[in-house]
C-alpha cells in the first residue's frame, strides 16, 4: 500500500520524484487549500454508507482506519449511468457529461491499481473519450491504509503503488510521508510549501520501515494469486463450478463493487412524449446477468450460471493476462465483504487449490 519508489510523470520528463514530510496538524489546511485544483471528493458517510462523494467540510472525510467504501472509485470515472449522445431527426450529437475538475483524497493503493486496469481498457486505442475526460479531470491523492480481514492486496501484489497518483500520503501518526507522483502533485505542494518539510531523516525511514512491517503483519487473509492462472486453466471442467453455480443468485453485486469490472450496456431512451428525440445512455452491466451474452433470436452463449461465474473468475484470476499482462483482481476484498452467498476470490481460489468445495 505504500510507494517504495515513485516513477516520474511521463508527461513531464524533467520532473524529479520527491518524498516530503507533512505534520498531521497541517492536513486540514492542506485539504482546504486544494479547492483551487478542483472540487474535493473523498470517502464520506452519506445515509449511513461510506462512499466517494463531494466533500463539503474537510472534517467529514474518513482517512484513517480500515474503512472501505461500498463502491470503488471507478464510479467517478466510469459512472453507473450517463448520456453518451442526444438524438433527434438530425442524428446523434455527442453529449459529453460536464466533468468539473476534481481532487479525490483518501484513495487506497488497491483503488489506484484498479484505475490503472480501467485505463488499460478505456485508454487503449480507440480511446474512450468519455472515460478520458473524466480521468483527465480527476486528481488522485492516495492515502495509506491498514488491512481488515477481507483485504487481499498483499496476495495480489497491489499493496504498493508506483504510479497512478498525484500525491500519496503514508500515515505515520504524527506526520505523513508524502510521495509526489506527478507535476500536478508537485503544484499542490508548491501551493502550500509551508506545510511540507524536505528533510526526510534516517529516523523517518526507520519509522516507515516499522510501519510497513506492522501493516504487513496485519494481513490475516491470503490466497494463492500467482498459481491461479494455471489452476483456472486446469479446473475449467471441475465440479467446483457447479457447486458455486448452485449457490449463485446472479445478483451482480460482485461486478458492481469490483474496481476492475468495466462492462456496460448501451440503451436508447426516448424523451417523454416524443417519438424522435431522446438520449443514448451508457449504464453498468454485469456478466452475472442472464442476458449478458444473449443475442437477438434467442441464442444465449452463456445461459448457465456456471459459465458466467467462470467468465468472471477467468477475467479476475487469469485471462486479463493475455490482453494486459496480469489478472485484473486488485485484492480490495469487496467481493469477500459483499457477496450474499459467499462466492468470492477467496472461496473460489481456495476451492480451486484444494479441489474441494467449502465445507
Amino acid at each position, binding site marked *: 500500500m505504500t510507494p517504495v519508489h515513485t516513477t516520474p510523470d511521463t508527461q513531464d520528463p524533467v520532473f524529479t520524484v520527491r518524498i516530503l514530510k507533512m505534520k498531521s496538524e497541517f492536513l486540514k489546511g492542506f485539504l482546504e487549500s486544494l479547492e483551487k485544483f478542483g472540487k474535493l471528493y473523498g470517502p464520506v458517510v452519506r445515509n449511513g454508507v461510506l462512499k466517494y462523494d463531494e466533500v463539503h467540510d474537510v472534517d467529514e472525510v474518513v482517512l484513517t482506519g480500515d474503512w472501505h467504501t461500498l463502491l470503488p472509485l471507478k464510479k467517478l470515472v466510469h459512472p453507473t449511468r450517463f448520456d*453518451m*449522445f442526444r*438524438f*433527434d431527426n*438530425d*442524428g*446523434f*450529437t*455527442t453529449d*459529453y457529461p460536464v466533468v468539473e475538475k476534481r481532487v479525490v483524497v483518501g484513495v487506497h493503493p488497491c483503488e489506484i491499481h484498479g484505475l490503472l486496469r480501467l485505463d488499460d*481498457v*478505456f485508454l*487503449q486505442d*480507440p*480511446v*474512450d*473519450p468519455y472515460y478520458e475526460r473524466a480521468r483527465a479531470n480527476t486528481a488522485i491523492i492516495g492515502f495509506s491504509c491498514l488491512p481488515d480481514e477481507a483485504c487481499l492486496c498483499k496476495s495480489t501484489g497491489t499493496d504498493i503503488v508506483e504510479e497512478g497518483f498525484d500525491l500519496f500520503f503514508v500515515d505515520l501518526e504524527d506526520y505523513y510521508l508524502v510521495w509526489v507522483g506527478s507535476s500536478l502533485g508537485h503544484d499542490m505542494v508548491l501551493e502550500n510549501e509551508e506545510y511540507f518539510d524536505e528533510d526526510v531523516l534516517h529516523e523517518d525511514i526507520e519509522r516507515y520501515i516499522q510501519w510497513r512491517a506492522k501493516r504487513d503483519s496485519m494481513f490475516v487473509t491470503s490466497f494463492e494469486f500467482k498459481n491461479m492462472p494455471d489452476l483456472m486453466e486446469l479446473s*475449467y471442467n471441475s465440479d467446483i463450478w457447479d457447486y458455486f453455480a448452485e449457490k449463485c443468485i446472479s445478483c451482480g453485486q460482485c461486478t458492481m463493487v469490483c474496481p476492475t469490472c*468495466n*462492462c*456496460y*450496456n*448501451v*440503451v*436508447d431512451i*426516448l424523451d417523454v412524449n416524443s*417519438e*424522435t428525440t*431522446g438520449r*443514448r445512455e451508457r449504464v453498468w*452491466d454485469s*456478466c452475472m446477468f442472464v442476458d*449478458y*451474452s*444473449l*443475442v*437477438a*433470436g*434467442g*441464442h444465449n*452463449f452463456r445461459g448457465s450460471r456456471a*459459465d458466467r461465474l467462470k*467468465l468472471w473468475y*477467468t*477475467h479476475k484470476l*487469469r*485471462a*486479463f*493476462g*493475455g*490482453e494486459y499482462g496480469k489478472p485484473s483482481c486488485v485484492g480490495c476484498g469487496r467481493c469477500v465483504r459483499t457477496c450474499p452467498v459467499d462466492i468470492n476470490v477467496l472461496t473460489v481460489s481456495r476451492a480451486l487449490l484444494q479441489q474441494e468445495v467449502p465445507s
Partner: protein
Amino acid sequence: MQTADTADNPFQPEPARIVRHYNLIKDHRFFQVRFVDMARAMSFTYNPGQFIMLSVPGVGEAPFSISSTPSRPGILELGIRKVGRLTDALFQKKDNDIVYIRGPYGNGFKIDQMRGKDIIIVAGGLGVIPLRSILYYVLDNRDQFGRLFFLYGARNPDEILFKDEFFQLKEREDIECLYTVDRVGDHKDWSEHEGVVTTLFQYLPEMDPKRTNAVVCGPPVMYKFVIQELLKLEVPKNQIQMTLERRMKCGVGKCGHCVLDHLYTCIDGPVFTYWDTLHFRELI
C-alpha cells in the same frame, strides 16, 4: 452531427441512406445503404468479414455483418433477419430513410493467407450473409486465388438466400457452386442436392490440403460437422476460418459483452481459425 469536438468519438454514428431494399425470404431483407456524406461513402473501406454497428435512434444499436465486397465501393450491403426490436424497427424503414452506422470493426478474413490457394466457402443458412462478402471479393480478384468452391446449405428451397444471384453464379466457369437443402419436400423444381451442408463435400474434387483455405459461417451447431469434413480433407487447422456471432454494445473492446476467454470477438474476431478454437474455450 460530426463537429470538431466529436470527431474523435469512436461511438459517433454517422447517417446513411437506405438506397434500395428488397425481401430475400420471409423475415430476411436485403439493404443497400450509403453514407449521406459523399466523401465518406467513397472513402469507407473495409475487409471482407468485418462488421458495422447500426443504429435506429430510440431503438438501439447492434452489430451487423457487411455482406458486400470492398471491391465494389460506395454502397454497403446488409442482409438482415427480423429477430428483435432493432430489426423490427429497421424493417419499418423505407428506401431513402436514414439509419446510422459506425465502423468497420473486427479483423475480417485473412485474405493474405488465402491468396494463391484454393478456396472452400461453406455457408449454412444466414451464415451466407458475411460469406457473400468474401465470395464476391474472390470473384472480383479472381486471378489472385486458386479454384473456388462455394458450398451453401439451407433448410428448404424456400429458405435459400440470394437465390437468383447464386444460381446465376453457376453460369460462371471460374467457380464451383454446390447447393443443398435439408429437405426438398414437395418443391418439384429443386434440382440441386438434398441433405445437410456436409453432404456436399463428397462432390469436391481432389484437393491439395496445404494449398486450401476454408471459410465457414453458419448456425453454432454446424461448425463441428463442417470442421470434421475439412479435417478429413487434411486442411491445416489455421487455414480453416470461421466468423462468429456475439452480443456487442461497443464494437471496440470496451463494453465486455463479446469476451471469449481473454479475447474480444469485436477486435480479435469475429474471424477466428479452428486453431484458435483449440486454444481458447467457448469460441464454438
